[in-house]
Structures are given as C-alpha cells and as structure tokens.
C-alpha cells in the first residue's frame, strides 16, 4: 500500500514540475533590522534553516530580493504536532535608491542570520559641513 502511494506522489511531482515556480508554497516574510551608517546601509534578516547554498540575494531593476529555502534534516515518516513555521522558504524585497552601488553589494549568512551590506556611492555620502566662526 505504501509503495503505491509513494509512486503516485512521484508522478504528481513530475507533472507539477514545469509549473513549480508559480505554485511553490507561500514564502515566509523574515523579520529584518535595517540601519544606515556613513558609507552603507545594512540589512539583517532572520532566516533560520537557510545555508549558503540555499540562499539567494539578487538585485534587478532597483529591487533587492533576498530569499532562501529552509533545509532541515528530518527523519522519515514525521507527522506534525505543532507548527509556528508554515512554509519552506523565505522571501522579502526592498526597493533601492540611486545612491546604492549595486555592483558592490555583499551578503553573508551565519547561524541563520543574513547580513547584506549595501554600500553607498561615493557622491552620495553624507558630508559634514564645518561651521565657521564669524
């Protein structure tokens, strides 16, 4: 019996594969901290279960997309008893202004926390203006 249902599942998955992008399960929106320093804006996002291989950081058309798949090693035959996390991936998007140097964006993930550093172009950095005593 279990053999039969496994085969059925595989067939379903194969049929669904071409439409996968459209029908993936809904993404979790990760909580973020965003702060700005003199030379860069930094985003920190909680994405537990994501490793460097399953992480995606992309910029296109002034939009920064961060996404990642949750990879957990689970024993076979697990049934859910309680679930806060109801999804298998994270995604969040940000709109970037002209001042961000999109070529120089760097990201890293450690212990499930993603850090993306968005350096500002030189010409857009804050300049302190000295006030002269009259």
């Amino acid at each position: 019996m279990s053999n039969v249902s496994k085969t059925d599942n595989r067939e379903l998955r194969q049929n669904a594969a071409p439409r996968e992008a459209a029908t993936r399960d809904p993404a979790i929106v990760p909580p973020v901290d965003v702060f700005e320093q003199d030379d860069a804006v930094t985003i920190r996002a909680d994405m537990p279960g994501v490793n460097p291989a399953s992480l995606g950081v992309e910029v296109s058309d002034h939009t920064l997309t961060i996404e990642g798949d949750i990879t957990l090693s689970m024993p076979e035959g697990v049934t859910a008893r309680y679930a806060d996390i109801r999804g298998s991936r994270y995604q969040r998007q940000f709109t970037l202004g002209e001042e961000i140097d999109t070529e120089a964006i760097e990201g890293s993930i450690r212990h499930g926390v993603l850090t993306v550093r968005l350096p500002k172009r030189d010409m857009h950095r804050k300049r302190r203006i000295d006030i002269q005593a009259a």
Partner: protein
Amino acid sequence: MLQDLWRFNDPLFGDLGRLLRLIDSDWGNGARADLRSAPRGSFPLLNVGETEDTVNVYVFAPGIEQSDLDVSVQDNVLMISGKRDEVADEDKERSWYRRERFHGEFQRAVTLPEGVDPEQVNASLKDGVLTVSLRKRAETQPRRIEIQAA
C-alpha cells in the same frame, strides 16, 4: 459609554472586526491557556514533529551561539531558554529604520506527549535551527504483532 469607542455601526467592519477578534482570541479560549504557553509567534518559533519512536522539536533560533542556549527537560516539559544580543560592531554611528528582529532574553516551554524518556535526548544546532530529538519509551511505541500461521 466607553464601549461606544469600539462599537462601529458599519455592518461590514462591525462583523469583520468581531470575527478577527474571535480568531485572535483562539476562538474564545484566549482567556484560558496552559500556564507556560507562549503566544503564537513568540521568539523563538518552533515546530514539533513526531515519528513512531521519537519526538522532534525544531527551534528556529537564528544568530545564537551554542553557549547562549540552554535546553532542559523536566517531566514532560522541554524548556528552551537563552539570549540573543546585538552584535557588537565598529563604533560607527547608526541610524535605524527597522528593528523587527528579537533582541534580549527568551524562554519557551514545550509540553511533550506522555512517554518521552528524559534520559535519551539529543540536541544539535545548525544554521540557526536547534533540533531536539527525544526518544519515546519502548512501551509507548507502536508494536508490530506477528500473526502466526494456524
């Protein structure tokens, strides 16, 4: 009357609001909860799964060092506590736009199904997910019964 401040005559928002509040209150049970339970969505988020011989608790605790996590089992309650500190950074001035991430100390208790052996617990931390695997006592595991040919 003070109630007039939250009673709306608008039929749509009146009913919708009542329904949303009912859902928020866990269908009317909100006033009664397990003593140690945390509101849904508290940090750290967790999922609990079960197999025939183990109970597995997945604690989504990103950005926490192993030394800052404490896991203990007492009777059938699993306690997870720890703290997450702001990463100390170069002393450049920061202006904050969003602070949605949790900071500080936390504690969560999970009531486990009966029959978990507190002596046989494994915990591991990887990519910000703490996995606690608890073995069920042999007597509570399903047992296969051989059928004898008559």
